[in-house]
């Protein structure tokens, strides 16, 4: 078991190292941040001064070495644009993103799971077709469009909800719905297919043959087993929601990590982009590690095969 965990931790560290290399060099392919920090027509000297100030005049491998050395001390560098430590920026935005993601996830599960169950037990009938339409719309309507329509209806025409910003629970409703909308459709689709698979299994057939009521078969025997892949997906989606809800956060001026990443990309703020991507990557890697370990604990075959 120890060997298994050590090997998994090693893979995680390797993944993070590769991610750091990729993002460090990839972000530099986008161009020179000095262009956006000086006025059009600035002299070469002005641009050189910016390069020097941010250490961009050093060889790439030296820059990368400094980046990694700082990272080892928990320092993600200083934002070019905000002149503030990236870690400080990240931590100031993280609670907002977590808050939004948790509520959006709860919404998506509350909508996606019951509608998925309903569609699976009414295959080919009205609720199933309605569910398919919902899935189609959920997966195809872009979240920025959903967000703008929500703002127009609930803020401008009805005047019920604030259009943007944060601070009260009311501020959260529209961004959470716009963000959860897509995931609700995904969860609905997975729940439906997972339920259909379970409902066709031998033990469910046996339960029915034994004369158990339909509600008990679905709730106790089918749903519990069908839920496993849905919850696994929800876990990964939660991390994605926390780190990559860029469009929703920009549309609703929600002060989260997605908007921070958007600002970093817009201003070619290398430390911000590197920091946000690495932290997001670390979250995914750690969650995967925990899941792997959990699997190994539950199922000895996994650790033995490994």
């Amino acid at each position: 078991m120890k060997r298994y965990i050590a090997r998994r931790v090693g893979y995680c560290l390797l993944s993070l190292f590769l991610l750091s290399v990729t993002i460090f060099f990839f972000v530099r392919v986008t161009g020179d941040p000095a262009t956006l920090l000086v006025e059009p027509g600035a002299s070469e000297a002005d641009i050189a001064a910016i390069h020097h100030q941010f250490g961009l005049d050093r060889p790439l491998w030296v820059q990368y070495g400094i980046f990694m050395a700082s990272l080892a001390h928990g320092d993600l560098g200083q934002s070019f644009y905000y002149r503030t430590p990236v870690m400080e920026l990240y931590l100031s935005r993280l609670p907002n993103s977590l808050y939004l993601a948790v509520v959006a996830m709860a919404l998506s599960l509350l909508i996606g799971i019951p509608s998925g169950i309903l569609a699976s037990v009414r295959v080919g009938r009205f609720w199933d077709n309605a569910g398919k339409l919902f899935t189609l719309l959920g997966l195809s309507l872009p979240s920025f469009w959903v967000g703008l329509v929500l703002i127009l209806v609930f803020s401008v025409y009805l005047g019920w909800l604030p259009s943007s910003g944060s601070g009260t629970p009311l501020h959260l409703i529209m961004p959470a719905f716009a963000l959860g909308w897509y995931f609700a459709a995904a969860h609905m689709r997975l729940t439906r297919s997972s339920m259909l698979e379970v409902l066709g299994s031998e033990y469910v057939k046996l339960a029915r043959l034994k004369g158990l009521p339909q509600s008990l078969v679905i709730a106790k025997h089918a749903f519990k087993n069908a839920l496993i892949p849905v919850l696994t997906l929800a876990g990964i989606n939660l991390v994605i929601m926390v780190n990559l809800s860029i469009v929703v956060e920009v549309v609703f001026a929600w002060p989260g990590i997605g908007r921070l990443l958007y600002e970093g990309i817009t201003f070619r703020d290398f430390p911000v982009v590197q920091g946000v991507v690495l932290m997001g990557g670390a979250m995914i890697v750690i969650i995967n590690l925990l899941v792997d370990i959990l699997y190994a604990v539950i199922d000895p075959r996994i650790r033995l095969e490994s």
Partner: protein
Amino acid sequence: MRRHHRGSSIRRPEQPALGSNESYPTRRDVFALAALGLMAGAPGVAKAAGPAGQLTWGIHVSLAPTWFDPAETPGFITPFMVLYALHDAMVKPMPGQPLAPSLAQSWSASEDGLSYDFALRQGATFHNGDPVTAEDVKYSFDRYRGASHDLMKNRVAEVEIPDPQHVRFRLKEPWPDFLTFYATASGAGWIVPKKYAEKLGDDGFKKAPVGAGPYKFVSFTPGVELVLEAFDQYWRKTPSVKRLVFKSIPEETTRLAALQRGEVDIVYSIRGELAEELRRTPGLTLKPVLSPAPFWVYFADQWDPKSPWHDERVRRAASLAIDRKGIDDAITLGYSKITGSIIPYTFEYFWQPPMPTYDPAEAKRLLAEAGHPNGFDAGEFYCDSSYSNVAEAVLDNLQAARFRVRLRPIERAAFIEAYSHKKLKNLILGGSGAFGNAATRLETYVVIGGAYVYGSYPDIDALYQQQAVELNRKKRGEILDKMQLILAERTIYAPIWQLGFINGAGPRVGESGFGLIQDFAYTGPFEDITLKGS
């Protein structure tokens, strides 16, 4: 002999200039100017009851802490939306005065153009209670490292302090544009408290800035909001509104919705159909401001003899094919100003060229005359993707006149980089909102060696060198006029418009501050902004 200025404008004809052959002000002029200066400077003259209430802005950009520090001001206008509230300058553009005395009560230039003396205003203080002193002025200049740093440091030999209330700038050689740069085109003339800034260091100062402006810093949440509070002791007048909140709302539709719901009182940058919606909404007011940002089409291949763009008639045909008014009506509701120049009409030494006309028939005739009766493959048309709506409209016009051209929108940073590194070709949609005067604009966009110059004409280059050393204002103006005439005659550029920057104000706003300061796209001066009924 020195020439004294109190609240005078460099563009006003009665203003004494540096040249030796111009008349001096009469005694009546001196009294009049002195009165103006005293009125502008008398502390508490317009003092109102205490500041009250709050106004909230929905701004289109993310505020950067560097904008809280005048030392890092880039040469574009955006940071001044904050500087006008937090800080004060020796001399700055104010309502009705392109160069208004502020922390400097008056100033004078020596006859030889080698020194400028500034007399400080009595009683002006920083937000922490420290008086504004000559030491602070010198320190702020020395500390300045913004966009014009090299230019200013290379030309200013020394900053002297003859006494605590006076500052003298000694130049290495006469520089007619000194005041343009010191007072408008840089942050070098915006004053910070020396002791406080030294104590906190650069990063500390940005986190807790102290200035001498009408509003004090309260808090800043990066990317979210900035909160300011009225400074009761501001020398010009006590601000009317107690608290200002600037919220960053990057999405245009959301900004408008926030204004419609009354969540914010003032919004910046609303365009096209959304501006039309703003105009239709009861209680909201459209606040268009003419920005000092002309747009143009640049013929990057005109110096290549093999290119069709080498032919002046072809360039003229392209200019005639652009329906500027139609584009203006569609995109900026007619609030932009059609122009034939790449220089804002408010700039010093601006020369008014003939207004461009829309004549597609004449454009086709000229094309045929140049040997292209069926048009030609005109190549690529590059633009900053954030202005692709303008480029698309121009493209339609050009294609209608048989210029077969393809649009190539490029992300903003990459566009600026490619444009300045001369990597683009064929046609470029350019524009500039940089400060300066006609000479500085020509230097950057027309004269050999300029940052965005793909080729130049020797006669224009020679004229530029002449004006750069000409101290006589009138003669210098004549040379610059001639350069602009050649620019128009050869159709080196096809100017389009001076951008109308459209904003909005809600029903709670009394005086919004839009359009009070010439060439300033944002609200200001903040001490003049009021809530309705206050």
